[in-house]
């Protein structure tokens, strides 16, 4: 307990310097600014804004990135409520009741409760990270290559089960991601793999290039296809503070949403995605009158938004303690950390405690800032939402170009991104989801490394994965998940969750 408080104190002493606060504020601000733009999800936002952080020291840069991430999340909710366009999968839930509230003139209350719920959830999640950080890092140190490999297999299985649409296609995307991750020099022998002697990719395909291509550019290409039909809420936003009645109805959903989101967020393999869906379902089940859902029930905004933010934050846990990114956004964070010379994993906490705890503390500060800056700035966001897409897409494009170029000052990478943009567009046309691909890509190198190490240790005996108890347990969880997901009854339910 004293450890816990001491660590938090250390974190806040780092986070409360003027510099850090300022970076966190800027991060939240620009994150929201870009995240608000319809059709720009958190992944594209972070990739676009990555170069902004290059100038700062690792601590400052990561804190700014975290700010950008929360800003992007909240910006996405704003768009979902005001325009009915979800920036990412999790915001779909928010559109259901949030936009209906907006249509009834309660847009302000919906935005307000989303911010307040997110803040409460963020506070809880921050404490959870602080509490779980040390023990989980300790556990991670007990992990050998076999355990790491099994853990990542479990993460990928989660990602498959949670992906939308066909499980088979999700598996295929993960495999394609794994295949892409093998491109470049082999770590052990230095042999060039699948590079065709091309210098540019001998270090492997850059993560930001791939992410920006299949998420950023492909998204722009997709959006251009559909004629502009945006339904920005007209008229008054209304008071941002929910009234007493609305507060009363929101308290329990916020508490439940926070709990659900926090737990799901810790799971490797994008459990955070499930949080808002689960919370919405729970609230609907528990409601005295379920028929109000979908017609502007504040419970349907408060619960899922809290779950979303809690999950967004606890998904840092697998990244910071185990070094395993649980979803595409965290994968991008790995890329960003590596650029700043930090390899995420259990050693971060012991080697640079000020970075780890500073980041944890600044998560909370970031949430507080969101609350403070968004309430007065919402009018600005509304204006921004009225910018037509025909002007927005060139702006997005040029930002991405500059962003990609700035990572390595390499023009070839810009062109490679265009290629991956076309690939991503093709994937979309073939009904593939790009998120599992990205996760497979990021975990690929780690998995191969650990697999090869495990095989050397066990002298080529595959049984090592089931003979070691921890590893066996992880694989068992993965196996059970697959079986459950493949059961026809479950398959139907899965469809319902994602179409609701």
């Amino acid at each position: 307990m004293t450890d816990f408080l001491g660590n938090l104190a250390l974190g806040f002493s780092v986070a409360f310097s003027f510099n850090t606060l300022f970076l966190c504020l800027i991060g939240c601000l620009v994150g929201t600014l870009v995240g608000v733009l319809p059709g720009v999800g958190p992944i594209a936002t972070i990739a676009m804004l990555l170069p902004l952080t290059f100038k700062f020291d690792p601590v400052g840069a990561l804190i700014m990135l975290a700010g950008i991430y929360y800003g992007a999340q909240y910006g996405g909710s704003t768009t979902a409520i005001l325009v009915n366009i979800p920036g990412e999968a999790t915001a779909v839930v928010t559109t259901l009741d949030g936009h209906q509230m907006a249509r009834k003139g309660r847009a302000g209350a919906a935005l307000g409760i989303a911010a307040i719920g997110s803040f409460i959830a963020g506070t809880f999640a921050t404490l959870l990270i602080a509490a779980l950080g040390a023990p989980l890092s300790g556990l991670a140190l007990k992990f050998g290559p076999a355990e790491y490999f099994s853990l990542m297999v479990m993460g990928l299985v989660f990602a498959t089960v949670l992906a939308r649409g066909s499980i088979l296609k999700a598996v295929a995307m993960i495999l394609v991601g794994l295949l892409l991750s093998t491109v470049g020099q082999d770590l052990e022998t230095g042999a060039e793999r699948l590079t065709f002697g091309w210098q540019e990719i001998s270090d492997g395909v850059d993560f930001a290039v791939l992410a920006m291509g299949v998420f950023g550019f492909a998204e722009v290409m997709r959006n251009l296809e559909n004629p502009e039909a945006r339904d920005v809420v007209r008229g008054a936003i209304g008071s941002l503070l929910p009234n007493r009645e609305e507060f009363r109805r929101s308290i329990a959903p916020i508490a439940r949403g926070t709990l659900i989101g926090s737990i799901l967020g810790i799971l490797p393999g994008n459990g955070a995605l499930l949080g808002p869906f689960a919370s919405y379902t729970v609230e609907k089940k528990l409601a005295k009158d379920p028929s109000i859902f979908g017609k502007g029930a504040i419970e349907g905004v408060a619960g899922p938004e809290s779950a979303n933010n809690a999950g967004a934050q606890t998904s840092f846990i697998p990244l910071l303690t185990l070094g395993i990114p649980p979803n595409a956004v965290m994968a991008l964070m790995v890329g960003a950390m590596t650029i700043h010379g930090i390899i995420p994993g259990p050693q971060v906490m012991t080697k640079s405690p000020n970075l780890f705890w500073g980041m944890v503390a600044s998560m909370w500060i970031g949430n507080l800032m969101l609350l403070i800056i968004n309430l007065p700035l919402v009018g600005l966001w509304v204006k921004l939402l009225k910018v037509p897409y025909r002007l927005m897409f060139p702006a997005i494009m040029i930002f991405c170009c500059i962003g990609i170029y700035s990572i390595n000052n390499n023009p070839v990478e810009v062109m490679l991104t265009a290629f991956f943009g076309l690939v991503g567009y093709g994937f979309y046309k073939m009904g593939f989801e790009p998120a599992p691909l990205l996760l497979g890509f990021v975990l690929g190198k780690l998995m191969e490394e650990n697999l090869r190490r495990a095989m050397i240790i066990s002298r080529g005996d595959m049984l090592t994965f089931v003979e070691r108890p921890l590893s066996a347990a992880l694989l068992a969880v993965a196996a059970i998940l697959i079986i459950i997901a493949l059961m026809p009854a479950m398959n139907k339910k899965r469809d319902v969750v994602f179409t609701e």
Partner: protein
Amino acid sequence: MQGNWQGGGHIKAPQDLAAGVFLIALALFALWAGSNLNPGTMRAMGPGMLPRAIAVLVGLCGIALIVGSLKWDGPPIERIPWRGPFFIALGIVSFGLTIRGFRIPLPGGIGLTTPALGLIGSGPLAIFIAGFASPETRWRELAIFTAVMTTFCFLLFKVALNLPIPLAPWLVGY
């Protein structure tokens, strides 16, 4: 939607069929590209082991998708409007080619060198090319917007952040 291919004969899910064919092609390509790599043994895996194993799995997924597309009904292949993707990609490539100049290697040892336009040249160029991607583009509006965006990018990336991105080598020398 017009121009969608609904399939015919035995094919019930054209989109899945296309996806399956793509995966198999990708798998074969990867197997061919990695054929010179040493797979090693289970005890000491070589660089070729995983690319090959994964490629085989990708191919199997492709086969499963194709088999499934003959058995179960699925979505059609949507019409692909080439205009958007083409001009977006072209805009990005033009940015890459001209931001600091680029030598395109051509067969026979000759190379084509593109001019280095820098941020204030490549930016507008890319935006204008991308403008063709949307039928809704209004050119005068886009021109004004481009000027604003370029100024903004200059202030943000050069003045505020001081990124080493070329500004206008032909004008100011960096």
